[in-house]
């Protein structure tokens, strides 16, 4: 295509076991946002890096070419490539906390990127840095410039990485999951800002993400990546309203929608790992429309409309059949509850006060939080980051000492700290932490760790506990082989399910889930939510579900408590709160939540 700012033609990136990317063709036009959507393992990060001329360690680009603004990026010397990086193509990393140099002041971090491509005596470096900061909507006053990365908020850190990327006015911005870990409000701000940036700077944007809902609001076109190939590509509106690849359809269906307490559909299975990919269509093992022909060779991409390409032999049938395909299951919509009934109450949090201390200051995390949880009920605590959600969760499980207030389980007041709780009390409340990587022992196998709660809290014999662990891993849809692996060998989604299995090993009555889906792909997220719904009916589990994602909350919670400044500012049945929020805080959250704009059209056919 002429006039393209970035072209990826027939790119193949090979690892020793097989191809990470294969036959990838993409273009980005000036002023355009191309969203690249895929699950973990789809090769989306490899693609993002390929646009920067980089391949992951141990891999090689064996075919194809990548050009940005007419400059080849692959197969050039490191010195040449360095000249282009940050100047014609710039990168916005995933996690700003890790991506900023902790030993460099914020202003310097931006200027440093300008300096990399200008003479060091060039007086424009500072003006460029200031302009970039302004574009990223950051304050340019000296007191801000002199701050260290840890002294600014998460949203500001993200903006600093954005300012670094635009400081040399590149032609193409490559964004790698820029909103992961941001709460909905910060995310909405960032997306709005990206739109303005694109309009102002006129650069092309390649936006790589697993969050279709987030990218839908900004992308002009979408490309869906699966097992290293582009399976569908087209204008955002077309692709979302009439997906032609079963995978796209399933992916869209997996996105929970905050405005409707409707279940999302899980997409079981995972992207086949490199080296274990089928010779035919990679999606065939998970596809409801699979035919014999699909297994022979990867289907070639074919045009099915203006700018709309799809690599599926059955693309005409996709729209009508996929929703009822046998592999796709619907999570039952939670039944609306009217009010908690005292007789059935399991957990009561009463007037909880807690502070979160950092070295310099005290942050009030809870200032009189009260709520109750019935048996087999799910209450969601909803709030932006910093609203005290995690601290409350930690108080409930006894990992954080509240300054006042009580947590009662089945009528008994629990000790403030786990150390003051009896073994059985500990067993009955289990936490699934936000970041499972931090709570899994890297040196022990998954099997040992999942077996541990059964041994310690339920006094099972080692052999029995291991047998149960295997069963639990199966229950959270992990292959048995995972038991022998160590956490480092697993993906984020797998680790999250291990953490879930570990919590379940204690046979708890209350499961406290702290942002457990925030790092997951939509399809895995739907599977996890699906799983939680099953577990709730099977085991009669009650849940405190902490999240800032309204879509997720809508699909799991019976009741919602909206938190702000350590207080419950609104509470009520999920549907009621999400459809007609009464307080400004709740309204802001509901408003900021990303959703698929074209869903209403798609739903007309699938809701029955």
């Amino acid at each position, binding site marked *: 295509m002429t006039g393209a700012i970035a072209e990826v033609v027939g790119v193949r990136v090979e690892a020793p076991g097989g191809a990470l990317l294969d036959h990838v063709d993409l273009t980005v036009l000036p002023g355009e946002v191309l969203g690249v959507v895929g699950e973990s393992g789809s090769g989306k990060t490899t693609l993002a890096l390929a646009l920067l001329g980089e391949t992951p360690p141990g891999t090689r680009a064996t075919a194809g070419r990548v050009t940005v603004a007419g400059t080849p990026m692959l197969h050039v010397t490191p010195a040449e490539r*360095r*000249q282009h990086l*940050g100047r014609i193509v710039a990168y916005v990393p995933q996690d700003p906390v890790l*991506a900023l*140099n*902790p030993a460099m002041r914020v202003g310097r971090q931006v200027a*440093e990127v300008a300096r*990399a*491509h200008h003479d060091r005596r060039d007086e424009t470096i500072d003006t460029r840095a200031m302009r970039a900061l302004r574009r990223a909507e950051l304050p340019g006053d000296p007191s801000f410039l002199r701050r260290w990365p*840890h002294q600014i908020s998460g949203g500001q850190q993200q903006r600093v990485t954005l300012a670094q990327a635009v400081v040399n006015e590149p032609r193409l911005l490559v964004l790698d999951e820029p909103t992961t870990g941001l709460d909905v409000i910060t995310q909405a701000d960032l997306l709005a800002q990206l739109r303005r940036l694109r309009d102002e700077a006129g650069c092309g944007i390649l936006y790589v993400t697993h969050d279709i809902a987030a990218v839908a609001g900004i992308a002009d076109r979408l490309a869906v990546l699966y097992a290293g190939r582009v399976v569908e590509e087209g204008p955002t509106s077309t692709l979302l309203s009439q997906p032609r690849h079963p995978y796209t359809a399933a992916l869209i269906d997996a996105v929970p929608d905050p405005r409707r307490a409707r279940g999302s559909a899980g997409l079981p299975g995972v992207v086949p790992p490199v080296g274990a990919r089928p010779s035919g269509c990679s999606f065939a093992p998970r596809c409801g429309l699979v035919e014999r022909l699909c297994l022979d060779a990867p289907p070639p991409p074919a045009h099915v409309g203006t700018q709309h390409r799809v690599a599926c032999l059955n693309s005409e049938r996709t729209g009508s059949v996929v929703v009822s395909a046998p592999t796709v299951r619907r999570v039952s919509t939670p039944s609306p509850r009217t009010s908690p009934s005292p007789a059935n109450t399991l957990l009561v949090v009463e007037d909880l006060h807690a502070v979160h201390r950092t070295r310099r200051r005290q942050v009030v995390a809870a200032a009189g939080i009260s709520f109750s949880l019935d048996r087999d009920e799910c209450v969601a605590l909803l709030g932006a980051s910093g609203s005290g959600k995690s601290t409350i969760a930690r108080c409930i499980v006894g990992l954080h000492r509240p300054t006042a207030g009580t947590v009662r389980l089945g009528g008994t007041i629990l000790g403030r700290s786990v150390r003051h709780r009896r073994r059985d009390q500990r067993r009955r409340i289990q936490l699934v932490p936000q970041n499972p990587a931090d709570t899994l022992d890297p040196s022990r196998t998954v099997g040992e760790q999942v077996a541990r709660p059964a041994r310690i809290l339920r006094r099972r014999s080692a052999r029995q506990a291991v047998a149960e662990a295997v069963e639990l891993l199966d229950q959270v849809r992990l292959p048995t082989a995972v038991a022998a692996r160590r956490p480092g060998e697993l993906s984020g989604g797998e680790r999250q399910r291990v953490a879930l299995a570990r919590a379940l090993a204690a046979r708890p009555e209350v499961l406290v889930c702290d942002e457990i889906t925030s790092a997951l792909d939509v399809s895995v997220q739907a599977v996890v939510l699906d799983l939680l719904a099953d577990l709730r009916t099977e085991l009669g589990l009650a849940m405190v579900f902490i999240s800032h994602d309204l879509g997720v909350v809508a699909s799991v919670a019976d009741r919602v408590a909206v938190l702000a400044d350590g207080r419950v500012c609104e509470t009520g049945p999920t549907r009621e709160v999400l459809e007609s929020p009464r307080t400004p805080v709740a309204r802001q959250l509901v408003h900021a939540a990303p959703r698929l704009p074209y869903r209403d059209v798609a739903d007309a056919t699938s809701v029955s």
Partner: protein
Amino acid sequence: MPRDPLLTAGPGRHHPFLMLCIRRSLAGIAATCAVSLLVFVGTDLLPGDAADVILTRSASSGGGTPEQLAALRAELGLDVPWPQRYLGWIGGLLQGDLGSSLVSGRSVTDVIGSRLGNTLVLAGTATVLLVPVAVGLGLWSGIRQGRPGDRVVSGVAVAAQALPEFVAATLLIAVFALIAGLLPAVSLVPPGTSPLARPEILVLPVLSLLSVMAGQSIRMVRARTSEVVRADFVRVARLHGIPERRVVWRYVVPNALGPALQLLAGSISWLVGGIVVVEQVFAYPGISHELVQAIISRDVPVVQALAFAMAVCTLAIYTLADLLVVALVPKLRTGG
């Protein structure tokens, strides 16, 4: 420690580093007091006391009679209960009076003064050389992780670390003194002169100490550096096209240096014990000879003074390193 209410409000808020320095110094003083007690009690618990030793030595067989023993104890002040003796010792310490040797009767300050000076010269020289060598080579090989330069440095470091200091010292003597004849095999210092007057006698002892300490230190600095090299912000800096040299100096080094220094403090405090062996091998007139003699003869005041001096050195090294780390790491310095 971060729970200090002083820091949540009040003047300390705006000078977290100053507050930290003050707090660390206070903690250091508290630790010194605790150490003094431990040293005192520890030496007091040694089986037998100076009275035993003196009488055993003077009487040809079987030691003195209980009466003689009691008389000597009273004379030496050993019959007073230990808390009282401890307070007396502390009081003297504060006035710079370390008591007098039970064996020779000379003041402890006299006995160990010049020797302590000699040891400090040796330890100081080793430290001054160690820091740049360990930091430099550690950073250098950490950045080159897996490349030939790193393999050589790491290999030599492991070998050096594995070698006990007396073997290293003996080897050095064999090569430089006996075979090449370049340097003296023993490092005698005439009383009343400084070892710095004849720097050549310091070369082999310092090298022996370095060979052991540097191996470990280089490896620790290297480990920390290679961690930083793999950090996201270094990868992202490269993706911004920041030149490699700049990446190393502005991104890797500042983040590796702080923690590296803290690790170095561990090596340097090892000197306190390790130096004894090296001094013995080279017959260097440092504290080790006195220390060993004093322990054998139960010369408690001398042992106490030396043990206390060593403990204070260790504490000082760690406190200094901690403060340096805080000064070098913005997040710690600003109290975030």
